């Protein structure tokens, strides 16, 4: 620590250079934080995914399957609880503002008890046909608070009265969950069902299941698929664990992409910091010779150079990851409303990776200058001949 004043003096010798280097490193680590933070979110979602929850939906699209399918699923061995839902896709005011409401039935709490909606809140929605519960991301996007009216248009769902508008009342606003990056809105199944023409009533778009035993949920999923395979309503079934594992986004390997981008950012600053420290050492070659002459060991000089190189890296990493954390919260506002994009989270692992990368960049940057300092010929350096 006693070298600190020396290092500070070295860094501040050219304040413009120091500040620009710091800014550059900060920007690179902002990107790093966003990218690796996204990976952290994928990992967290995979970890939080419940092994005992299973989703099943019609294999070949259409307007949904008869609600009887849910009852048949409930009778399959290994199934503990079943809930059915309908989808209400549409938009708010302009088709650009896509919105999606999950219309749930009275059993929703037994399958989605972990979604941060309290039993009382579920009850409010189930008792009030036009009631909805919104997560904060959605509430913020549509600028709604409890008690407000929420109006949307759906061209896809035909109403018996021929209207396209749907009016809701916001009954509760709850925290978001990592597995729903775009937030969520839950409404009442009866509202959508009874609004449809008679021929379309009694259909469901998805059946969600809780298995007795997480270990056997894959087998239960297979049983469901097999039961309906040759029926009029073949189903496609997947456990939540499998659906949320990995980092597949429409076939793109997100982790590969984010790592590539983060690496490119690091490479960019490595060149910058490496040059900066090399130049700084070159300019002060004679000074280092003096330090060595008055008894500073190679080790002491090495530590000084490494610290000088590490200062902007560590500081920049801390600032950058901090900015990334702030930016991450703004992402839902910047994205088109229909896209569920997981938000980067600055988990402890992200901080560890950022710190490790900062040290690595600092060490790599300092390597060549240190080598030169170790091999320096003090006499000629003092006379300014190198």
């Amino acid at each position, binding site marked *: 620590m006693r070298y600190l004043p020396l290092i500070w003096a070295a860094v501040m010798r050219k304040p413009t250079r120091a500040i620009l280097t710091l*800014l550059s490193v900060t920007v690179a680590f902002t990107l790093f934080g966003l990218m690796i933070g996204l990976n952290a979110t994928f990992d967290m979602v995979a970890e939080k995914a419940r092994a005992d929850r299973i989703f099943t939906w019609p294999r070949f699209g259409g307007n949904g399957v008869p609600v009887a399918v849910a009852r048949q699923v409930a009778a399959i061995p290994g199934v503990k609880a079943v809930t059915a839902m309908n989808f209400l896709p549409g938009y708010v005011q302009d088709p650009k503002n896509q919105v999606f409401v999950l219309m749930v039935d009275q059993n929703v709490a037994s399958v989605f008890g972990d979604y941060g909606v309290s039993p009382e809140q579920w009850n409010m929605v189930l008792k009030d046909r036009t009631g909805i519960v919104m997560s904060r991301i959605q509430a913020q996007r549509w600028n709604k608070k409890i008690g407000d009216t929420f109006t949307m248009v759906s061209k896809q769902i035909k109403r018996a009265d021929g209207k396209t508008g749907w009016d809701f009342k916001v009954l509760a606003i709850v925290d978001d969950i990592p597995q729903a990056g775009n937030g969520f809105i839950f409404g009442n199944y009866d509202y959508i069902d009874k609004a449809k023409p008679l021929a379309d009533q009694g259909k469901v778009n998805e059946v969600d299941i809780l298995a007795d035993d997480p270990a056997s949920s894959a087998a239960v999923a297979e049983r469901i698929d097999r039961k309906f395979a040759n029926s009029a309503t073949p189903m496609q079934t997947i456990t939540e664990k499998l659906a949320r594992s990995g980092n597949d986004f429409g076939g793109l390997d997100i982790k590969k992409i984010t790592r590539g981008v983060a690496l490119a950012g690091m490479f960019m600053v490595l060149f910058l910091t490496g040059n900066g420290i090399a130049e700084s050492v070159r300019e002060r070659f004679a000074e280092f010779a003096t330090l060595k002459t008055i008894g500073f060991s190679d080790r002491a000089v090495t530590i000084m150079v490494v610290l000088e190189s590490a200062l902007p890296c560590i500081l920049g990493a801390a600032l950058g990851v901090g900015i990334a954390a702030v930016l991450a919260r703004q992402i839902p506002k910047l994205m088109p409303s229909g896209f569920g994009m997981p938000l980067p989270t600055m988990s402890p692992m992200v901080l560890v990776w950022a710190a490790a990368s900062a040290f690595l960049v600092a060490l790599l940057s300092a390597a060549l200058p240190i080598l030169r300092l170790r091999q320096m010929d003090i006499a000629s350096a003092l006379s300014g001949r190198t």
Partner: protein
Amino acid sequence: MNILRQIGIVSLINFRSIRLRLWRSLVIVVGMACVIGVLLSMLSLTDGMLAAYMKTGDPGRALVVSTGSQSEGNSSIARDKARLIMDAPGIAKAPDGSPLADPGINSGVPVYRLNGRQAYNTLRGFGPKGVMLRPEFHMVSGRMFRSGMRELIVGVSAKTQFKGMNVGDKVILPDGEWPIVGSYTTGDLLDGQLIGDTETVMKAIRRPAYNSVLVRLASPQSFPAFKGALTTNPALAVDAMLQTEWYKKISEGFSTFFTVVAYGIGIIMAVGALFGCFNTMYAAVAARGREIATLRAIGYSAFPVAISVLLEAAVLSVTGALIGAGIAWALYDGVVGSFGASVFKLTVSPALIGMALLWAVAVAVLGGLFPSIRAARRPVVEALRAT
């Protein structure tokens, strides 16, 4: 002395001395290479996907979907309505005098990607006019499916993304598997898809209604009449669009999303590179202090000096951008990729590379501006005295 001549001479002296500042100059080159490499690699996906969508559309064809549909899969057209649509004016005639139109079906088929993950591919139905409507369609191997038979043909690119997409493989559909009997190419999005006989597919997946109707227009001028006849018919609730318009519309969502992400990342990286550029150019100006002062002393004006600094930044930045574009091009141009059910070739187009060069110039101008002003403004005497 003529100002252009001055700029030429000062810049020449400047570039000859770049060697002395090689490592520092490389900061700009490497920085821009990283920015543009990342940006173009990401945009190659959007670019390729958009190109494939646009190619699939033919302005000589019109697509009819139910009102407000965002995809063919979400659209529904009952059989009697399809007949009304095909009777509308403005549709080209087949040699036998019947309208050159084909009501089609479009369904997701659960498949596995080569990496084992669940995904959907698109299963399309062709009716009797399906091939006649699409001159771009050619069989590549095997044979065409027979109408009324539970068999499929597959596009040539499907097997590069999904499992079980070769001739001879079987696809799981309700009530038993369907064999793939042939492969085809259209040179567009259909190359990643599966095709079967419309009526047979509809029966299998229990669809009472078609998804859409594709028609060949009698001439480009006949579209308004065709559209007008459909939209004024009270028995129909449909949208009619030129096929090119349709693909533009359905590609908007994802292309906006990917473009926002790619440019977001690109801009963050460019800001990082900009600070690097600043840094390098300030150092370069400092290193050339004496030289610049000498030039000023013997009568060169400040402007050429400033320009030479900007030019140096631009040359380094553009070099970096070209390297980055080259890397992105070598890695991704022409590679077959997929997003969702769409299979297409990634492209790093000349337009993208042109855009990259503009970015490079912008970074150089922004990053070189203040250093160039400093170079031009520095008092001559002070600079000459400095060591």
